[in-house]
């Protein structure tokens, strides 16, 4: 083929441009450490890297979220432990007060201590987190949820429970509302309450009250009426006699699936009621106990029985509150465990994502350097060849 010098030159220029552009691409790769810097060099890879980066950021955000959830739950956990300690002290005080040897002064002192515990509980119920949010206020985190009242404490929060997302599709509840923790506590044994009527003149005290046969339990209201000091009959809500019998102190009275043990000596016309449990605030429980302890003026046997009944019922209610608090705390613990698990899942997921990104995008440095070397060699060879051929011209030899 006939080759002209200008063709040679233009082809050389094209080749040189191509070689230099290749060298520049390789240089870019080496200086950035990336095998591609624009999507056109690897469109699918670039799309994947974008996806992985988004997943990575999201996963890191989930860890941030779970750290925040952890802080909130730890605050709640601490508050619940302190609440249980306070309730335990209160229970010990109540047991001490139940001892008939206590003088009215002792009882009054116990009442004062109980009031202090009530204040402690109130401050726990109004616990604030690091940002000043009330942790037991539900969603109304900006206003103090509990304020003492004559009958206990008024709750002005709501029943909202904040959830924080810690993984795709997985949320964790970061708080329990104060209504649940402090207010919605079942009275009695959690199913029903056995209590003495206010006007009882005997010394009958409710000793134990249990559900003996859950299948037979109706949830109805009954009254155990003493027609004589040793004769009782059990009436249902419609005044129908359910059962009747002769009373022996400490012997269980069973009907409709419940079992109630009374001790002491009830008088004729004394009455005890069995009614389904209702919710009662722990503050009301403490208030009732304090009120009972302060009414120690009656030194009569009947008055003593009334105090015993009140203290027993307070102990039952404190046990329920402890139970509720422990249940919530174990749920908090389970949530904290869930968060820890999720954090370790997230961290291994992040390592995996970083690995995937690196696999797609990281430069194989030795091979890049080798190819840069080859490209340089090619370029200098091309330049040398061009100079050599350009030196050849017949005109040089024409003298």
């Amino acid at each position: 083929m006939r080759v002209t010098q200008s063709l040679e030159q233009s082809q050389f220029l094209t080749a040189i441009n191509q070689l230099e552009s290749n060298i520049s691409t390789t240089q870019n790769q080496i200086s950035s450490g990336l095998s591609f810097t624009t999507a056109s060099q690897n469109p699918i890879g670039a799309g994947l890297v974008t996806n992985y980066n988004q997943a990575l950021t999201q996963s890191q955000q989930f860890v941030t979220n779970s750290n925040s959830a952890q802080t909130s739950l730890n605050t709640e956990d601490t508050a619940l432990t302190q609440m249980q300690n306070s309730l335990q002290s209160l229970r010990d005080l109540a047991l001490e007060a139940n001892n008939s040897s206590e003088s009215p002064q002792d009882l009054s002192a116990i009442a004062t201590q109980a009031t202090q515990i009530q204040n402690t509980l109130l401050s726990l119920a109004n616990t604030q987190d690091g940002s000043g949010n009330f942790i037991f206020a539900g969603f109304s985190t900006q206003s103090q949820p509990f304020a003492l009242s004559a009958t206990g404490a008024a709750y002005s929060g709501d029943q909202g429970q904040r959830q924080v997302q810690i993984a795709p599709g997985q949320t964790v509840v970061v708080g329990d509302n104060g209504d649940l923790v402090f207010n919605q506590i079942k009275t009695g044994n959690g199913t029903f309450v056995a209590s003495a009527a206010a006007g009882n003149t005997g010394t009958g005290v409710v000793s134990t009250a249990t559900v003996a046969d859950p299948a037979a339990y109706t949830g109805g209201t009954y009254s155990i009426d003493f027609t004589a000091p040793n004769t009782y009959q059990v009436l249902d809500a419609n005044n129908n006699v359910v059962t009747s019998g002769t009373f022996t102190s400490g012997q269980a009275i069973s009907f409709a699936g419940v079992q109630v043990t009374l001790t002491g000596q009830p008088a004729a016309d004394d009455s005890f009621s069995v009614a389904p449990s209702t919710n009662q605030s722990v503050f009301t429980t403490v208030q009732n106990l304090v009120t009972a302890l302060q009414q120690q003026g009656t030194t009569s046997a009947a008055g003593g029985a009334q105090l015993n009944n009140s203290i027993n019922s307070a102990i039952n209610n404190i046990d329920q509150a402890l139970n509720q608090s422990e249940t919530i705390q174990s749920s908090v613990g389970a949530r904290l465990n869930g968060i820890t698990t999720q954090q370790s899942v997230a961290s291994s997921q992040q390592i995996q994502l970083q690995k995937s990104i690196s696999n797609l995008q990281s430069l194989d440095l030795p091979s890049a350097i080798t190819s840069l070397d080859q490209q340089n060699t090619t370029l200098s060879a091309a330049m040398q060849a061009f100079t050599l051929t350009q030196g050849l011209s017949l005109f040089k030899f024409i003298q």
Partner: protein
Amino acid sequence: VADAIGISLTALQALQQAIAVTSNNVANFNTPGYDVETINLTSAAPQSNGSVTVGAGVDVAGVTRAFSQAETNQLNTSQSALGSLNAQQNYSTQIDNLFGTTANGLTTALQTYYSGWSNVADDPTSTAARQALLGAAQSLAASFQTSSTQLNAMNSDVNTRITGDVTQINADAQSIAQLNQQIVVGSAGGQTPNTLLDQRDQLVSSLSQLVGVTTTTNQDGSMNVSIGNGQPLVLGSSTTTLTTVPDQFNASELQISSSALNGNSISSSITSGDLGGLLQARSQIINPALNQLGQVAAALSQSANTQQNSGLDLNGQFGANLFSAGGPQATASSKNTDATTASVSIANLGALTPDNYVLSFNAGAFTMTDTSTGDNVALSGAGTAASPLTGAGLSIVLSGTPAAGDQFLIQPTAQAASTIKVALTNPSQLAAAGAIATSASDTNTGKATVAAGTVADPANPNLLATTTIQFTSPTTFSVNGAGSFAYTSGANITLNGWQTQISGTPATGDVFTVQGNTAGTGDNTNATAGANQQSQGVLDGGSVSISGAVSGLVTAVGTQAQQVNTAQTAQTAVNSAAQTAVQSTSGVNLDNEAANLLQWQQAYQASAQALTIASSLFTTLIDSVNGTFS
């Protein structure tokens, strides 16, 4: 002897011309479009001298240029294709750099925005977290705007270059027409005006880089040049002037027309050369990228606003729109014969595409064509406010009945990215809380719980009204004291635009309340939902999330740039081969010319020697004759 002198003289003259032709070749070694010329020598008509015929020397029959029309046509075609790809590559590379880098601004801004929602969910009452989210939203909107500004700048650049190309094409066409005239005159004597032909071929060659051309040569030597589907550009000595006209739908886009076409566009037939490449870059690369970006912006804006609207802000008010973005655009064709207008809104985000559509009214019926695929879109409705036309995720209402033949261009997403901005100014207006709160009464004796509840219809006017659900028996409940509904544990209870579930065993008299969450500033339900939108499918029938759409955009522009790059590399090789073929035929090889020079020089020296000998023969003869007569 006189014959020998005459013959030598013809040789000297012819060889001088030959040396001139060779020198001319060397002189034009670097002249673009110069075709190497060769001298055609023929022996002169012999003179009969009785019984012997002796040659009469050498004649110059002419000078011809080495030229192959087929190779030249091939080179022109290849240059047109390369010109088109070069123009496209210019824009595809810019867009690739804009979106295709793995650390592009949009992806980062989007991630920061969604992290912002998560951080608000972690601490809904924190003004710092809210302010950060608002800032992230502003950066995101700015990122959309910056990208679309750059794409729009590319479109103006296309317009400028189209105007420039058209001017250049018209000038080249004029020059070709003038050369045609001169060539016709120059060819009249039977000679070929090589220089003029070279110049004309060179003009056609540069024209072919601007626009694909077809040439035919007439009997008289003149050349006709046409472009596109045979639209004439040069006919002998006359030209048709190309013009630019505004697009019938979009006045900011220039189209190609000609003086013979009354402003009708011939853009669709121009597919090669720089001009064809510019038109394709606009319709295949820049506008689709703008639309795709707009689709993401529209999806982001609409889904964020819907989420805002269904939650409550720090003041207990329903969240106002977080973003504002321009909706779909409908433009009536400038050729429409009446003033009917169309207004378009997004009816279904999941069906929204990044394509443009042309809505036509013919024979009393509407048809809508996807301009990217050419497919017709199924339409329903009548186009009135009561019964809008719906199709492709759009709802279209016309101001009246259009005239037959009216057309409207519908760009569902073209302006969303350039107009998106943050509509909120106050961080407390971010709706982090859910709209409703549920609660169980403290006096409940049963063991049933109520779920947090979700908002199904934020527009329901009674959404925040307080609703009391009271159990009239363990298996039935009344709502606000009325009715008796059967209770199923965990079943949905739906009212006033909300939905919740009660589970467990309620007791008679138990009360549950659903009410507006106006005091629930610590609630993060809506903020969590906002953060979750990152991976929630909203486009393509709910299968593609907003993040997915952005990485799809990265892949799409990358693939496009890669295709153009590959095609451009291949076409460069084709073009180089075509150039080699033409150069091989028509180029000047200096070594050839040197050899020719030597050849002519030797022949010249020999002829001069022959002249000397003839001359000395003549002198000898004269001398001898002088001796005889002296």
